[in-house]
């Protein structure tokens, strides 16, 4: 390892050795191999022209760097080519259907990118005096109004950086509220089907986590939950719609029971896309819910982030919301409530979760998306997302096992299992087969409550033609898994790489280039 790839012709093969399916370069026409910057770059090269430094005596306190940094540079054309080539080894929504369940991979409108790049937003420092950032504060304030109104909640904490950070915000608000009541409740209840971030967040905040079972219909077992409630239970974390793609019809009853037992209800809002404009979580007794702006409100996922996870709060939890937040003054101007005036404005705040004020670049994008749709368009979003998912679910009936297909419609995502696959064939094989068909695979092996889960979330920005093509492809691949087509075991065949060895990567971790550091 740590050597250039061995594809293609090599000198030791001799001139006559290029077979019909090999090339001198290892490239395949428009698909170009690209080595690491550490292999193609040079530590004496730079792609940036920098003015010479004026003469000035160093004041670095005797700590001037002597050792080489070992970072190669590339000229601008080489840089553009390097990243352009790498980009072509990626799948993105712009390229095709990306039905990753629970991740809401919808179209990212380019208006939102343009808005976020307006100089007045992208080129503003977080600590500028408030009179110079009134427009930026207005964006936060306006988005906050939408989020509170769409969810029917009391307030919103805007600073959390992503969904899991939002979960942390909600859980800390619950903990602070319990402290204010003088209670030390230690347990958070989490359904088995929850995202891994839920139990991880509760543990991160010092709670112990207990699982609640699901019913055969894929919902939280209300009786089991009620039986577990008691003076040690701080609250529950419920995903709604849940990770099986089903609405929790008992959520209001769950909330009432939890409140009666002195606890709070955290709702994981990762799947808000299914219900935005159709139902307000505040009407179901929720105390805190994060909203992934990078899911429901279409800020780009960017290959893993950034996200943004504002948390809407009930009246019971609002006094404990974190700093800072935007407040409108009597004269209509906006200011940030920070530590300085917290004692007066928000005396019970649990404090600051992050430097500065949150993901401004995501706020502008999400607000542009929201204003484009309006209240009517957002309702259509939820309806089309749910329609698309049900269309996929019903169109694959008889081909793939749908564990909850009998219990009625799904919400925004359709869940299937590996039931009926030939011996030795798995969900993973289907996923890799779909890559060859030109699709990003669905979410696999999650949720954990069914065997070999395949979770398909089409979102509302897919056309019927795109869905039909995917349904055809998934049917074809699933039938290959059922009849045990050996070629499927070695898929993908046409991706930039064949199946990658994850076991080797974990057994002998190579996490950085260890080549020459010279300078």
């Amino acid at each position, binding site marked *: *390892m*740590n050597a250039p790839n*061995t594809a293609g012709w090599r000198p030791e093969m001799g001139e006559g050795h290029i077979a019909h399916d090999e090339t001198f370069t290892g490239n395949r026409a428009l698909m170009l191999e690209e080595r690491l*910057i550490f292999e193609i770059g040079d*530590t004496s090269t*730079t*792609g*940036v022209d*920098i003015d*010479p*430094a004026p003469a000035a005596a160093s004041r670095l306190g005797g*700590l001037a760097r002597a050792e080489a*940094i070992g970072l190669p*540079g*590339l000229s601008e054309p080489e*840089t*553009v080519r390097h990243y*352009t080539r790498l*980009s072509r080894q*990626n799948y*993105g*929504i712009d*390229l095709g259907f990306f039905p990753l369940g629970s991740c809401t991979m919808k179209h*990212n409108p380019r208006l939102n*990118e343009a*808005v976020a790049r307006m100089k*007045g937003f992208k080129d503003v420092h977080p600590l500028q005096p408030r009179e110079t950032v009134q*427009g*930026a504060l207005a964006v936060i304030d306006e988005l906050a109004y939408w989020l509170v109104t769409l969810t029917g909640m009391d307030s919103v904490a805007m600073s959390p950086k*992503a969904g899991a950070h939002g979960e942390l915000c909600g859980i800390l608000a619950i903990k602070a509220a319990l402290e204010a009541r003088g209670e030390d409740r230690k347990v958070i209840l989490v359904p088995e089907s929850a995202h*891994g971030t839920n139990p*991880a967040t*509760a543990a*991160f905040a010092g709670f112990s986590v207990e699982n609640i079972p699901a019913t055969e219909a894929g919902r939280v077992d209300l009786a089991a939950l009620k039986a577990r409630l008691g003076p040690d239970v701080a609250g529950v974390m419920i995903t709604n719609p849940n990770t099986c793609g089903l*609405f929790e019809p008992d959520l209001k009853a769950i909330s009432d029971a939890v409140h009666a037992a002195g606890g709070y209800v955290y709702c994981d809002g990762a799947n808000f896309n299914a219900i935005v404009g159709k139902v307000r979580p505040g009407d179901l007794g929720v105390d805190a819910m994060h909203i992934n702006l990078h899911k429901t409100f279409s800020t*780009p*996922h*960017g290959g*893993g*982030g*950034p996200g*943004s996870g504002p948390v809407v709060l009930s009246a019971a939890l609002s006094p404990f919301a974190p700093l800072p937040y935007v407040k409108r003054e009597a004269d209509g101007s906006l200011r940030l409530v920070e530590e*300085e005036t917290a004692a007066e404005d928000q005396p019970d705040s649990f404090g*600051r979760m*992050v430097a*500065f004020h949150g993901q401004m670049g995501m706020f502008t994008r999400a607000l542009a998306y929201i204003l*484009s749709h*309006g*209240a009517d368009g957002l309702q259509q979003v939820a*309806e*089309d997302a749910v329609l698309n998912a*049900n269309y996929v679910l*019903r*169109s694959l009936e008889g081909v793939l096992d749908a564990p909850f297909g009998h219990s009625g419609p799904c919400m925004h995502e359709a869940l299937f299992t590996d039931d009926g696959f030939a011996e030795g064939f798995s969900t993973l094989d289907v996923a*890799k087969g779909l890559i060859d068909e030109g699709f990003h695979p669905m979410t696999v092996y999650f949720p954990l409550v069914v065997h070999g889960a395949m979770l398909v979330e089409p979102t509302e*920005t897919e056309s019927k033609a795109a869905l039909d093509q995917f349904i055809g492809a998934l049917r074809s691949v699933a039938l290959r898994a059922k009849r045990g087509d050996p070629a499927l075991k070695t898929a993908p065949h046409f991706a930039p*790489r064949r199946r*990658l060895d994850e076991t*080797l*990567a974990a057994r002998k971790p190579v996490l950085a280039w260890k080549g020459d550091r010279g300078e």
Partner: protein
Amino acid sequence: MRYLPLTPDDRGEMLAVIGAGTIDDLFVDVPAEARLSGPVPGLPLRQTEMAVERHFSNLARKNKAASDHPFFLGAGAYKHHVPASVDHLIQRGEFLTAYTPYQAEASQGTLQVLFEFQTQVARLFGCDVANASMYDGSTACWEAIGMAGRVTRRKKAVLSGGLHPHYVSVAKTMARFTGDTLDTATPELGGTDMDRLLGAIDAETSCVVVQYPDVLGRIEDLSPLAAACQAAGALLIAVVTEPVALGAIKSPGEMGADIVVGEGQSLGVGLQFGGPYVGLFATRDKYVRQMPGRLCGETVDATGKRGYVLTLSTREQHIRREKATSNICTNSGLCALAFSIHMTLLGGRGLRDLAALNHARAVQVADRLTAIPGVTLVNDSFFNEFTVMLPKPARAVVHELAAKGVLGGVSLGRLYPGDAALENGLVVAVTEVVSDGDIAALEAALKEVLA
């Protein structure tokens, strides 16, 4: 609606396939009393692209953009020139609209970038290994404190007074709930609190956290602290909020830091009113299994070709759930890409040249400002940021400078409200974007305001 491809005919056909009469039949699980019959009341309806763009243009105009004014703010976020190719490349749809690279064969582009990013961060910080990014510097800092607790099985962290006050606040918020003990202080003006830190290390100490350069811009050798930590079985955590500095000064890893975290916003990302930014996190090989966040590793495919995958996932929440090293899932991937592209353009040589220019510019400005009567320099040493004491509270001065069109710095009154000893302090950052004209404008405006 322009983003919704389904036509009314499509919807009708699809409902027929499903066997549903109306769309609301698909929402039967939502209790009828909670279901909304029309759009959420009290909110406007859909708008054209042009109308939305106009709304934002109007709001954007109400902000003073850094590039339109003489600009000297830092304190954890820095304005640098970002080459145009960076923003072009991160907007390629294959990067912008991709998800976390769980399906490696469809994500080699993102994965190779992460492998390169991890290597760049590790080398810059002088560490063995770095992760694929955190949300930002402040959350990376708390994660480092948490990791030190796991490694040492101790619960007391000693924080330098030179650590950014927001970072301290984040740690305080978390420690209140996790039961960790924090030993904190505000900045000393007469010198750093190195003696306090050395004196506070004991058998209960999990880590010492020190910012480098510190929040006032001072630079100090961390080697004695590293030795003291090592002797006591504690970890040294160094926090770098201005990575460009490491083109000019020794890396924390070189001086013995065990964990180095940072804010990577300076390279590629921009100011963005505070986010999204990119948290950097690096450490020694031996602690890799205690690290938070995603890691990309090298491997081979079925034909032996080199490729990349996310690895060591058994540390992470989606596998380990409540036993994970962190709850982080989404990180700051696209900002890490921007950081990495900018770093690739610079290379080690460009970074050194850029750092030299920043430092020389800062020295010039420090000399000019301290020539104004009543203005004194706090720092013995600095990179591109320093603190001056003014003859009156700096907070009001900042507003008066802004009224003259000069964004002159960050007042310590804003960072440490109510601290009388610090209220006259002004933190001034000087990067390559500052022109001679900007310096003259700051000097003239400050003279007028102080006159």
